[in-house]
């Protein structure tokens, strides 16, 4: 018994030792996994080399888990994160609730950033985040395959369906198109360009749910027709699967191609080098509205190491490091000047077009409940996609749920 008591004492001491040491010069970075991870990993490596005494920890998470962790941490003021990587759609909630540090209070942020990306980083005129990855939803197609069957660049989603149908029928082992069908954020971001092109929307600027419209129903019906043209199992496709399908030549059209995925299209692993054209999304009854998908870096309000975190963020967003990230990992920069940089354009031929798209990019609804709205919409879109619900019913129910979420 006495021995057990001693053992317990020792354990409690060990546990005590790992309590947060606030005075320590540490930096805890919570960021995304997948294609984003190498960018932060590289930056941590370089920053650590310059600042050997800082204890850096880096966490890699998927989109959903990252949001959960950051939101819970911010609510509970756990002081567990110093640098948080945020999707631009989460930023309104984090800024409005006072969960982020005003960057001007910790030395400011130099640099000329792309306008749409800096816009989503501000709240009431104050800068709360640094644009880190200048992602934008583009559209991609195999110009060789489309030309072979007599198609030009598709101008509307109806054109896309037509071309995809012909290729699906005539090309052995090639699906007409591919999109991200897994529930949650991916299926919603695949659907939004189609919805917008039909003149529909999820939420109005003043925060009203508007999914129960004929426009939205037309958009969803068209979106569901994509499934028959996509590879089997598209319901579970995420970024990795979509990119593989295009690069291995298993699909002719990518309904969405984020610029950060496009980096390896011409690389060694690609079977379709220089055959994939990356352009702005098609329209339908309206012209295309390119969707912004910036990732930001911010300092949680409860971070005990704000000065260190700000220093790291300035390091990451410096011109030389933004260029390095783009060259080595394919994640597009956020500094406007870099899109016309000689080396970068040589490697990523679509960068000038991307800058234009970025300048007019449409951000997703800037409401603080977006994370919840997106989950609801994602759930219903997937129910419709796997055929368990009719489009109209899915939209009506989703709209009611979203209205309820917005009223809270």
């Amino acid at each position, binding site marked *: *018994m*006495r021995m057990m008591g001693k053992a317990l004492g020792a*354990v409690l001491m060990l*546990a005590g030792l790992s309590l947060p040491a606030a005075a320590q010069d540490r930096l805890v970075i*919570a960021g995304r*996994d997948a294609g984003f991870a190498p960018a932060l990993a590289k930056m941590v490596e370089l920053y650590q080399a310059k600042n050997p005494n800082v204890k850096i*920890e880096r966490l890699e998470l998927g989109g959903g888990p990252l949001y959960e962790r950051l939101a819970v941490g911010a609510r*509970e003021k756990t002081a567990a994160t110093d640098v948080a990587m945020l999707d631009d759609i989460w930023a309104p909630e984090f800024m409005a609730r006072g969960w982020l540090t005003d960057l001007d209070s910790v030395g400011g942020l130099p640099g000329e950033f792309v306008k749409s990306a800096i816009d989503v980083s501000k709240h009431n005129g104050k800068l709360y985040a640094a644009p880190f990855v200048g992602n934008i939803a583009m559209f991609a197609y195999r110009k060789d395959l489309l030309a072979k069957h007599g198609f030009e660049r598709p101008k509307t989603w109806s054109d896309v369906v037509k071309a995809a149908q012909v290729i699906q029928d005539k090309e052995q082992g090639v699906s007409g198109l591919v999109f991200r069908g897994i529930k949650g954020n991916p299926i919603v971001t695949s659907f939004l360009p189609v919805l917008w092109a039909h003149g529909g929307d999820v939420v109005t600027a003043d925060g009203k749910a508007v999914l129960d419209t004929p426009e939205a129903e037309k958009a969803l019906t068209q979106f569901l027709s994509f499934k028959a043209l996509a590879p089997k199992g598209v319901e579970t496709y995420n970024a990795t699967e979509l990119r593989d399908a295009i690069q291995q030549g298993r699909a002719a059209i990518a309904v969405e191609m984020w610029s950060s995925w496009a980096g390896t299209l011409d690389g060694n692993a690609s079977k379709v080098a220089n055959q994939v054209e990356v352009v702005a999304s098609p329209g339908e009854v309206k012209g295309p509205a390119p969707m912004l998908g910036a990732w930001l870096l911010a300092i949680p309000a409860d971070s005990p190491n704000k000065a260190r975190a700000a220093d790291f963020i300035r390091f990451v967003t410096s011109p030389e490091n933004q260029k390095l990230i783009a060259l080595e990992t394919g994640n597009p920069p956020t500094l406007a000047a870099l899109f016309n940089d000689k080396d970068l354009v040589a490697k990523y031929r679509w960068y000038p077009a991307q800058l234009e798209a970025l300048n007019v990019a449409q951000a997703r609804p800037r409401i603080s409940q977006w994370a919840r709205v997106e989950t609801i919409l994602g759930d219903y879109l997937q129910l419709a996609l796997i055929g368990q619900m009719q489009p109209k019913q899915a939209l009506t129910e989703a709209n009611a749920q979203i209205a309820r979420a917005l009223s809270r």
Partner: protein
Amino acid sequence: MIRIIAAFGLCALSLIPLLWMVATSFKPPAEYVSTSIALWPQDPTLTHYRVLLDGGMWRLGLNSVVVALGTVGLSLLAGLPAAYALARFELPKRFDIVFLGFVLVIKLAPPIALAIPLYQVLRALGLLDTHLGLILANQILALPFAIWMLLGFVRDVPYSFEEAAMLDGAGFLKRLLEIVVPLLMPGLVATAVFVAIMSWNEFLFALLFIQTPSKFTLPAFIATLINEDETLWGRLSAMGLIASLPVLFAVGLVRRGLTREVSVDQH
């Protein structure tokens, strides 16, 4: 004969997933990102282990050890006296039945149902994101289990031994420590091993209550590896193997004890 072959065959079948994990942890990526069904690595490599060790994996293992030891220590310290009291004393108004019933409900209740208020309790105590907090939360799983198991073991210790000691004038603590605990040792060890395994594998509370990456336990870290980039199987397998070896070893220990008991039963 058929029985033996069937037994070995089934056993082999159920172990293939584990074999796959062991083998994959030594395969270079090109070998597992493929359509081959070869289990054994053709070109074995230690890269995945090296990556994990360089990434400070040992630290996470240590976290799991600290939490498991703490959970075991606390559940035995609180569970043994409770089990002793329930086994040896008449409690008024059938309190013992009420208490055991409550313990049973807790044992059977889904942890997620208590997670939200528990989060708020740990926060109020300032124990969020600490191993001590996780050790406390784990008591929800560990303490009911420890009390139930120890209750049986204490009842098996004949009271006459204690009565004899009492006639010799031995005080309560002396009796407990010098007579009951030594006789209870096998039971204590078995309980400790089971609680340790439970804590070692616990995922939900570690996911919810620990935020700082360097404080993660192994299962919480493994969950971050099972993500969008689906083909990190080499690293995942190496990680899984490291996390499994201590448990398999512990089961080997207890299992030997269990078989001995079973064989004693027969006679």
